[in-house]
C-alpha cells in the first residue's frame, strides 16, 4: 500500500508564520502564572474558599490573640517584679509555738531591727537591708488630709526597693540616727496632699507630729496584689518608732518586715540560705526547730504567677493548634473536591504539555494560597481581637511579631502539608481517564 499523500509543506505552519519564535528550551510554568491561576481558581468558588479558610483564620487569630494576651500578662508580671525591686529578699515574722499552740504570724516580736543590721553586716552577698514598720495613719497638709500607710524604714530602703527619688532627696543615715522628723512622700500621697505645689520643703503632720517633706518618690504603680505602691510616706525607722507609732512600745526593736537586696549576679538561692542560716543562728533555733520567720524571694512569687499564666497560654495555644489542624483538614477536603471537579481540566492540561510536577505545583500552590489567605485574614483579626480584649477586659496585651510571623508560616505549612495529598492525586491522574471524566 502506497498512500498518495499530499506532499508536506514545511513548518512552521502558515497560521503561525510571522509570529515570534517559541523559545528553544523547555521552561515550565513560572510562579507568577501559577499564583494567578490559583487565585482565579479560588475566585471561581469564593464562598467555598472563604468557608474553607475559616478554620485557619480562626486558628491564626486565636494564636495571635492568646500569645498577645499571654505576653501582656508576662510583661505585667515582669514590671511588677521590677517594681518590687530586683534581687529582693523579704523576711517577716513567722509563727511561734508555745507548747502545742501555734500563734499567728507576728504574734511575737520574733524579728528585730538588729536582725536586719546583722544580715547586712555578716552576709557578704547582701548589699543593703532595711528594717520596716508600717501603719495606716492620717496625714495632714494645710487643709488637705489623706489616710495612707506610714512606713518607717532604714535609709537603704530606697536602694533595696529600687525607689527613684523624683524630687528632693532621700533621708540620710545621719537623719535616721538622729530620729529627725523628715518624710519622703509616695507619688499618690504627694498628689493628694499637694495637688498644686511642690511638696518639697512643705510641712505635714503625721498623727499630730509635724514633719518636713524632703522628697517625693517616683511612681511604681500597682503591685501584684493590685495595691497602690505609691500610697505611702517613708520616714526614718526610729523616728517612726519613737514619734509616730510608739504607743507605749517606743523602745521595741521589732519590725513588720525586713527587706534585703542581694548583690547583682549573686545566686539568689544561696543568698537566701545564708540569710536563713544567720537568722536561725541569731534566734538561737535548735536544728529541729522550725523557722520562726518567713523568708521569700519576691521574684519567685511573681514567677509562680508567670508560670500559671504560661500554663494558660499553653492551653490556649493547643486550642489554636487544634483549630489549625481542623482548618488543614478542611483545606485537604476542599482540595480533594476541587481535584475531582477539575479532573477534565487536569486531563486537558496534561494533554497540552503539563508535566506531573506542573499539576502538583498548581494544586499545592492553590492550597497554600488558600491557607495563606486564611492566615493573613487571621493575622488582621488576631491583632484586632488582641486590642479589643485589651480595651474591653482591661488586659494588658503585647503583639508578638515573631508569633505573627510564625502563625503565617504555620498556615502556609498547613496548606502545603494538607494540600500535598490532593495535589499528588491530581498529578498522578491518567490523562486519558481524566479527559473522559464527566
Amino acid at each position, binding site marked *: 500500500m502506497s498512500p*498518495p*499523500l*499530499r506532499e*508536506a509543506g514545511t513548518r*512552521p505552519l502558515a497560521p503561525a508564520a510571522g509570529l515570534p519564535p517559541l523559545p528553544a528550551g523547555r521552561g515550565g510554568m513560572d510562579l507568577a502564572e501559577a499564583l494567578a491561576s490559583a487565585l482565579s481558581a479560588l475566585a471561581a468558588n469564593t464562598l467555598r474558599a472563604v468557608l474553607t479558610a475559616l478554620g485557619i483564620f480562626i486558628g491564626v487569630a486565636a494564636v495571635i490573640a492568646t500569645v498577645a494576651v499571654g505576653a501582656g500578662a508576662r510583661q505585667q508580671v515582669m514590671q511588677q517584679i521590677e517594681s518590687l525591686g530586683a534581687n529582693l529578699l523579704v523576711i517577716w515574722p513567722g509563727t511561734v509555738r508555745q507548747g502545742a499552740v501555734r500563734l499567728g504570724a507576728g504574734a511575737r516580736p520574733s524579728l528585730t531591727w538588729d536582725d536586719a543590721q546583722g544580715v547586712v553586716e555578716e552576709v557578704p552577698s547582701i548589699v543593703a537591708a532595711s528594717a520596716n514598720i508600717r501603719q495606716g495613719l492620717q496625714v495632714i497638709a494645710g487643709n488637705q488630709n489623706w489616710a495612707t500607710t506610714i512606713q518607717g524604714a532604714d535609709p537603704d530602703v530606697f536602694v533595696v526597693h529600687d525607689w527613684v527619688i523624683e524630687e528632693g532627696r532621700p533621708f540620710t543615715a545621719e537623719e535616721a540616727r538622729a530620729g529627725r522628723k523628715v518624710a519622703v512622700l509616695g507619688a499618690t500621697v504627694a498628689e493628694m496632699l499637694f495637688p498644686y505645689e511642690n511638696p518639697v520643703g512643705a510641712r505635714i503632720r503625721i498623727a499630730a507630729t509635724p514633719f518636713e517633706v524632703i522628697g517625693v518618690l517616683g511612681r511604681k504603680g500597682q503591685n501584684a496584689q493590685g495595691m497602690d505602691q505609691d500610697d505611702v510616706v517613708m520616714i526614718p525607722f526610729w523616728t517612726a518608732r519613737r514619734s509616730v507609732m510608739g504607743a507605749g512600745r517606743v523602745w521595741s526593736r521589732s519590725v513588720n518586715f525586713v527587706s534585703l537586696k542581694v548583690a547583682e549576679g549573686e545566686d539568689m538561692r544561696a543568698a537566701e540560705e545564708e540569710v536563713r542560716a544567720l537568722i536561725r543562728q541569731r534566734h538561737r533555733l535548735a536544728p529541729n526547730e522550725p523557722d520562726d520567720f518567713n523568708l521569700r524571694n519576691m521574684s519567685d512569687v511573681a514567677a509562680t504567677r508567670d508560670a500559671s499564666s504560661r500554663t494558660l497560654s499553653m492551653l490556649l495555644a493547643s486550642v489554636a493548634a487544634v483549630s489549625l489542624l481542623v482548618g488543614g483538614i478542611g483545606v485537604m477536603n476542599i482540595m480533594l473536591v476541587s481535584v475531582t471537579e477539575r479532573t477534565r481540566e487536569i486531563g*486537558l492540561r496534561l494533554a497540552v504539555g503539563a*508535566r506531573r510536577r*506542573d499539576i502538583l505545583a498548581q494544586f499545592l500552590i492553590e492550597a497554600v494560597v488558600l491557607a495563606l489567605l486564611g492566615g493573613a485574614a487571621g493575622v488582621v483579626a488576631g491583632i484586632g481581637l488582641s486590642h479589643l480584649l485589651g480595651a474591653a477586659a482591661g488586659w494588658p496585651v503585647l503583639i508578638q511579631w515573631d508569633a505573627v510571623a510564625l502563625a503565617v508560616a504555620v498556615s502556609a505549612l498547613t496548606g502545603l502539608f494538607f494540600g500535598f495529598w490532593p495535589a499528588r492525586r491530581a498529578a498522578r491522574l491518567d*490523562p486519558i481517564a481524566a*479527559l473522559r471524566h464527566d
Partner: protein
Amino acid sequence: MRDADAAPGPLLVETEGLTKHYAAGEGTVAALAGVDVAIPPGAFVAAMGPSGSGKSTFLNLIGCLDRPTGGSYRLMGEEVARLSPDRLAEIRSRRLGFVFQSFNLLPRADALANVELPMIYRGVRRRQRRERAAAMLAAVGLGERLHHRPNQLSGGQQQRVAIARALVNGPDLLLADEPTGALDTRTGLEIMALFQALNRSGVAILMVTHDAEVARFAARVLRFRDGRLVGDRAQVPADAAAALAALPAAPAEAA
C-alpha cells in the same frame, strides 16, 4: 517490505507491532493487537472503526497520552514508546496538538487565555503568549472574540478556539478525536474546511471518527476492527469548502 521504508527523510509516525493490553478482571484485553502504520509529514489521515475497535487507543498512543504495552512507536524518528510520563508531556508540548469532541476549554478562561495555556507549559513569556494566541485565534477566524468565554461562544467557535490552542505551539501533528461529533452538519463542515486549509498549509492531521461523511475529507483512511488495522486506503478527499457551499441556505450561526 514496507513502502514507507523507501520514503526519504524521517516519517512523522512509524509504528511496528503497536500493542496495548488492559487488565480486565482476571485476564487482559487487547485494545490494540499489533498495529504497523507509517504516516509521512503533512498527511491528513482518518482512523475509522466501530467503538471498541481500537481507534481511540491508537489515537491515545500516537498522542503520547498513553504508553504501549508492546511494539515500537517512532515520532519524527524518535522512539517514544518507553519514555517516562514527564518526557511524554514534553513530546506532547513540542510536537502534538489535541482537538476533542467536547472541546475541553477551561470554562473560566477567555478564548485568549485558553489558547495561551499550552505556551504556559513551554515557558513562553506572557507578552509573547498573548501575541501568538491572538494571531492564532485570528487565523481560525476568531480575531474579534479574543475575550469571550466558552459559554459566550457557539460550538463551532469553541472548537475553533480548541484548534487554535492545539496549533499554537507549532506541532508536527494535530490529533483530533471526533472533532465534529458535537457539532451540527454545517458547523462540522466548517471545521473540516478549516482542517483542509490547515493541512494544505502543512499541518499533518490524524482524526478519529466513526462517521464516514467526515472521513471522506481525509486523504487516507485507516480502518480498525478488534484492535487490528484492517484497512489502509488512500482516497481523493472531498472538498469541504465546496460541500459547505452546496448546503442549502441555513440561518446564520448564532454568535
